């Protein structure tokens, strides 16, 4: 038997390196620093982007078996299911085409009326279609990752929708992918408008793939079945997108606020294609110049110049 055939070697006397305890202390300190830096400052962003780029090929490859099982499942479900789905889709399309035809005339009418009363024209939202790479398996949060990133024009904070309604919001953007925090995540919040009463409120993520309406008085006019849409006051979500439906109203006696449970209209499970919208704030006119300039330039052309020139 040649030398070095066995895995039994005496431990080295010298050159052992730092002790395990020292290494534990060092790496724990680095990890704690990273946690603090990641939540408070933006310094860890390049590190995260780099590692994400490193993992992206692997993630893309691992998404393939998922797509194959989806495709295989659809293939195996048979002709009847496919035909039923097709007729369902055609029905939906017919219903929508009637609506769409009306939308065209309404848009034209709206533009004319806005011009008549001298309102600014309504905003047109730009969008990017994206495919879902994978859902984070982290049991603590609800996040999905999509295959469009900064190089395709996705910006942090952009709303993400699917055909049923609002799904979530882009929270981190990498060069070629982005992270979307779903509305049902515990840390997510969205301003909503009750379409029946036109009352504004805020919906927050809750446990078990649901949302809740917080800070509503116990006697507030909210009924089961009310549809909540985006209100458009946040400068992020365009107004009028479906968000959720009220499923339970519990006017609690022990609190001045009611507990209102909502079911999101867009289901995050099994979603594969999403639309990333441009945040509304990016299309709004820039903020007006500071007060000191206000008295000086009555001429509107001067406002267009950079603020530096006007100040002096």
């Amino acid at each position, binding site marked *: 038997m040649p030398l070095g055939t066995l*895995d039994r070697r005496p431990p080295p006397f010298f050159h052992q390196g730092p002790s395990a305890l020292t290494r534990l202390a060092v790496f724990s300190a680095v990890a704690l620093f990273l946690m603090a830096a990641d939540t408070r400052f933006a310094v860890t962003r390049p590190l995260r982007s780099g590692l994400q780029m490193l993992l992206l090929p692997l993630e893309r490859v691992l998404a393939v078996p998922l797509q194959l099982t989806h495709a295989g499942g659809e293939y195996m479900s048979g002709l009847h299911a496919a035909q039923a789905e097709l007729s369902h889709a055609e029905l939906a399309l017919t219903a929508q085409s009637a609506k769409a035809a009306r939308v065209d005339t309404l848009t034209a009418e709206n533009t004319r009326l806005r011009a008549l009363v001298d309102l600014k024209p309504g905003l047109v939202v730009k969008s990017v279609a994206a495919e879902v790479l994978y859902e984070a398996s982290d049991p603590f949060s609800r996040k999905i990752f999509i295959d469009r990133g900064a190089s395709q024009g996705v910006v942090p904070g952009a709303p993400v929708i699917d055909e049923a309604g609002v799904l979530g919001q882009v929270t981190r953007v990498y060069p070629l992918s982005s992270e979307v925090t779903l509305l049902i995540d515990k840390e997510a919040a969205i301003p909503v408008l009750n379409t029946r009463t036109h009352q504004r409120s805020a919906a927050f993520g809750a446990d078990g793939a649901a949302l809740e309406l917080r800070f509503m008085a116990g006697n507030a006019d909210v009924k089961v079945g009310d549809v909540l849409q985006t209100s458009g006051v946040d400068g992020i979500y365009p107004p009028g997108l479906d968000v959720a439906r009220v499923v339970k109203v519990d006017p609690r006696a022990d609190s001045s606020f009611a507990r209102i449970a909502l079911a999101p209209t867009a289901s995050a499970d099994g979603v594969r294609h999403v639309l990333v919208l441009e945040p509304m704030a990016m299309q709004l006119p820039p903020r007006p110049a500071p007060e000191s300039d206000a008295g000086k330039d009555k001429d509107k052309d001067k406002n267009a110049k950079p603020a530096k020139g006007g100040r002096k």
Partner: protein
Amino acid sequence: MPRGADQLLLPVNPLFLWFSLFAALVLNMLPLGRVAAMPDFLALALVFWNVHQPRRVGIGAAFFFGLLMDVHQGAVLGQHAEAYTLLSFLAITMHRRLLWFGLAEQALQILPVFIVAHAVSLVVRLLSSGSFPGWTMLLAPVFEALLWPVISWMLLAPQRRAPDRDENRVL
């Protein structure tokens, strides 16, 4: 498999060692959905190599793989890294004692290590966001400990081969 009665092992192939860690990472990254009780294969492989090859796979490697998991899951950067660092430290401190026991006893002794790692993750999450994934997450370390004999058998198999090739032997 007490050490006294154990067969003499061949030296580990570093290529196989790093490939097994990479495979565990891939297994962790498989999009299987959100299951709180899902065992962490990467933690399992890291602990295994920390116990068997502490001079090759140390705390630094555990830290780096933790960072990769953080980025993949979109978690706070450093959450998995911290958990894996602690996991690796505990595994290295007990590696001399652990190998004197049989596989079942090893699994029993390794269970608290996994519990501590999951507890660290939970505490970090409770501090940063206050979310709790449910009680089924208590099962994850138990599954990991139950997988310990399996992974020990699988990852030690290449080292159990005969030093001289033998046609009548499978491995």
